[in-house]
């Protein structure tokens, strides 16, 4: 039944879609090289959507629309709100970069960005396997196109090709898995899936096979080892602004997908997927951190570090259901959510500084390009240092609070294996600290390679400074965001 609530549930998506079309149309009339109208419209759209979803989220209601096809609960709305803000920041940071490199191409940059966000929104809101898949495809198709936006640039094209082939394969995995789940249970509805699986009447073999493929699909989106191969190549090969785009907001969508499929849909199989997530997490932490040490390209290094951070998120997700204690489960999932949100915030700042350093015809991609940044600009060096120390998990920065909450979730299960995992994760953080420190060393201890002053447009400088400050402020006062995540997860589990 399509009632008023159904429309309320998908207002943000409607706004996004309409505005993406409007921007594409207006762009036909705007021939200015900087496409200011598209830029401003895109920012306004994102602000509006963020405000709308934030308002919904604060309202705290759970609405199912279109006969349970979509769900609009606080968790979904907060994730949408944060994704929209992340996209907003991405547009601001990337503006000069894409303009200088001729990637605007008639505003396509903004249109594709909004469409990929639409895909993320649909994924986050989906309460149905098919809709989830549609959202995923919408997100990834727009991303493939964006990676290839510099079509005269061989590296980018190669990255787009890799991304497309591997991404298509992962989508295939996921679809295959979803079809098995459908075959076994006869329903596409995630709530129905849960009921069918928990009834215990289903053939376990088919379910578990389906589960394996689903987990593989989720792991691909997260970039967890061994489904991580695309991450370093795509992060490095894509234009930096695009790297920022695919590295930030989609992580939130991936988290939503994991929660919807594994927790809301397949919780009765938790014992099976917990072990899988545990293995993926161990491998991600190990390989992500070890491989990052050897990198000289900072985008590649951050790519491997992303892999290791996703290992932490998976640890948070798996710590949830050891003894069926709902409170402990909510604690664990909200720690994962907190981790993912703060990680996106940190990534934005990091790539923001990389974008700032990139000049026309010169990509600041090597770690050596950061040499002596502190002498050239203490402000940007400070922001980058805060970002890296945060990723290393050092207090008083937000990365520490994120690691603390995941470790707390692991240890409070009280099981030896989980405590062992916590110790392992902590040891891997030590390796992580080493390569983050190396970049800080280059920035602070080495002599600058050039004295060229760093200037940034006003809007970018303001947002970047606020972003860096937020990493510190949230590190000192994490209570609000933590409570928000906890509340969202509790309500998600309750319905």
């Amino acid at each position: 039944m399509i009632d008023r609530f159904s429309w309320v549930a998908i207002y943000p998506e409607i706004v996004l879609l309409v505005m993406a079309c409007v921007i594409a149309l207006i762009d036909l009339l705007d021939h200015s090289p900087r496409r200011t109208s598209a830029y401003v419209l895109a920012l306004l759209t994102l602000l509006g959507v963020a405000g709308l979803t934030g308002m919904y989220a604060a309202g705290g209601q759970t609405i199912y629309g279109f006969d349970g096809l979509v769900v609009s609960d606080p968790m979904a709305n907060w994730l949408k709100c944060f994704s929209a803000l992340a996209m907003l920041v991405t547009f601001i940071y990337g503006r000069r970069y894409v303009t200088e490199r001729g990637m605007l191409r008639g505003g396509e940059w903004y249109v594709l960005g909004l469409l990929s966000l639409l895909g993320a929104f649909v994924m986050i809101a989906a309460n149905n396997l098919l809709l989830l898949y549609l959202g995923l495809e919408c997100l990834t198709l727009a991303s493939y196109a964006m990676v290839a936006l510099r079509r005269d640039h061989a590296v980018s094209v190669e990255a787009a090709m890799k991304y497309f082939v591997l991404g298509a394969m992962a989508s295939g995995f996921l679809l295959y898995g979803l079809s098995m789940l459908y075959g076994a249970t006869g329903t596409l509805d995630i709530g129905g899936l849960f009921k069918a699986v928990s009834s215990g009447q289903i053939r376990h073999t088919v379910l578990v096979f389906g589960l394996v493929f689903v987990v593989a699909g989720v792991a691909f989106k997260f970039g967890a080892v061994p489904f991580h191969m695309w991450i370093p190549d795509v992060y490095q090969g894509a234009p930096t602004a695009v790297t920022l785009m695919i590295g930030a907001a989609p992580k939130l969508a991936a988290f939503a997908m994991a929660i919807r499929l594994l927790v809301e849909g397949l919780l009765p199989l938790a014992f099976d997927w917990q072990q899988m997530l545990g293995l993926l997490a161990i491998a991600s932490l190990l390989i992500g951190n070890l491989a990052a040490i050897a990198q000289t390209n900072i985008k590649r290094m951050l790519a491997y570090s992303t892999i290791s951070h996703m290992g932490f998120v998976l640890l948070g997700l798996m710590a949830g259901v050891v003894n069926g204690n709902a409170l402990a489960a909510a604690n664990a999932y909200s720690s994962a959510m907190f981790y993912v949100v703060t990680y996106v915030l940190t990534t934005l700042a990091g790539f923001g500084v990389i974008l700032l350093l990139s000049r026309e015809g010169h990509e600041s991609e090597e770690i050596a390009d950061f040499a002596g940044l502190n002498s050239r600009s203490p402000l940007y060096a400070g922001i980058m240092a805060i970002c890296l120390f945060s990723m290393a998990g050092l207090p008083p920065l937000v990365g520490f609070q994120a690691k603390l909450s995941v470790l707390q979730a692991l240890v409070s299960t009280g099981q030896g294996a989980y405590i062992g995992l916590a110790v392992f994760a902590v040891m891997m953080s030590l390796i992580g600290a080493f390569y983050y420190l190396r970049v800080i060393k280059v920035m602070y201890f080495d002599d600058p390679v050039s004295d060229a002053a760093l200037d940034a447009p006003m809007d970018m400088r303001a947002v970047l400074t606020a972003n860096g400050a937020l990493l510190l402020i949230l590190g000192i006062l994490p209570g609000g965001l933590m409570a928000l995540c906890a509340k969202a997860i509790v309500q998600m589990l309750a319905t």
Partner: protein
Amino acid sequence: MGWLSLAIWTPIAFGAVLLLLGRERQAQLVRWIALIGSLVSVLVTLPLYSGFRLGTAAMQFVEKSVWIPRFNVNYHLGVDGISLWFVLLTAFITVIVVIAGWEVIQQKVNQYMAAFLILSGLMIGVFSALDGVLFYVFFEATLIPMYLIIGIWGGPNKIYAAFKFFLYTLLGSLLTLVAFIYLYTRSGGSFDILTWQTLPLSGTAQTLLFFALFAAFAVKVPMWPVHTWLPDVHVEAPTGGSAVLAAIMLKLGAYGFLRFSLPILPDASREWAWLMIALSLIAVIYVGLVALVQQDMKKLVAYSSVAHMGFVTLGFFIFNDMGITGGLIQMIAHGFVSGAMFLCIGVLYDRVHSREIASYGGVVNTMPRFTAFALLFAMANCGLPGTAGFVGEWMVILGAVKANFWIGVAAATALISGAAYTLWMFKRVYLGPMVNDDVRKLTDINGREFLMLALLAIAVLWMGLYPKPITDVMDASVANLIKQVAVSKLN
């Protein structure tokens, strides 16, 4: 805002202000603001001493407010007789360090001064935190400014030293974090350190926790055999960095043993005391001998620090009144004395740009005033009665003899090796004929250097002649601690 909060945040606020002043021509302004900031932070710590109630082991100047409600983490501060003096010491040493860096540091003066002021606030935070997470945050955050201090203003091999410092100490503290979280879950969701001290724990849990905490605190102290980072770091760090490292940062580890290991894990502490005593004795005897053969003055003092800190941990783990009080006094005395020794080396290094003992000789002829100070600090370093160094060592040895005669004898050999390496260095650097032109061209200390050394000299003599104010503050808390260690918490 209570006095403790003021003590923590005043230097940090001044440091933050300094970071906003960037240009080199503002350097003089930066120096004055830094000096004022450090003096103000001394002023706000004074009420802590004057208002301290003697004769109680309870925490004083307690402040408590909710910080992270989801994990029941509180902004919980307080000092007792064990921590009070370290708060005062930290604020005092920061003034000295600001004066010491006055003319020496010419580049990025604002960042240099800001790093030390922020570091000062963070370390005061460590000494006054009564919440596990708060403690950990301050404990770890000190790594950031120290890493930058070593790396930006350090010697030729600074990068190696900065990494070694950072990764060694981080390794230790990460395990501590897991231990804290474990204690949090065991206590039913509390990070309160005083609650942890009443928590019953099984023997295995205690042992595992003991070693997880040991990883952090032993590296920080540093105890043998995880002390190897210290000489490397001292050699490369700038003078001020060495002084703060030796005077205060090393105390964070020893303080951790007193605040966590002993009262929270009394059974494991007693069970593993033999190990701690053995490691301490190795530090005292073996590292003392290692110090004897050093060619580099800073390395020599660094190894001497390891040996002296061995006394501290030895004192703690013989579990009697004499030992623990002696260890605490030794910590404070070592703060003054080693800080002063590093500053003396800095004075010479600024003029000659060498720390090799062999490049000096006969300094007394050109720098008589300076040599007088250096002699006083050298005497304090070998524990001459009447100086700060004597009181603590003497008490630890007495305590050790009370516990076991042979431990006391072994510890007492340190007095011999300590005197040997200190006096031998003194002889080679300051006495004898002038060996080269560098020494002939030396100029004696100026007013600024005189001021900073005089302040330390007063402190060293005062502690040596009249330590009563210090021991008075400690007595009740130490007695309480010994009671806590004596009671088994096995359930």
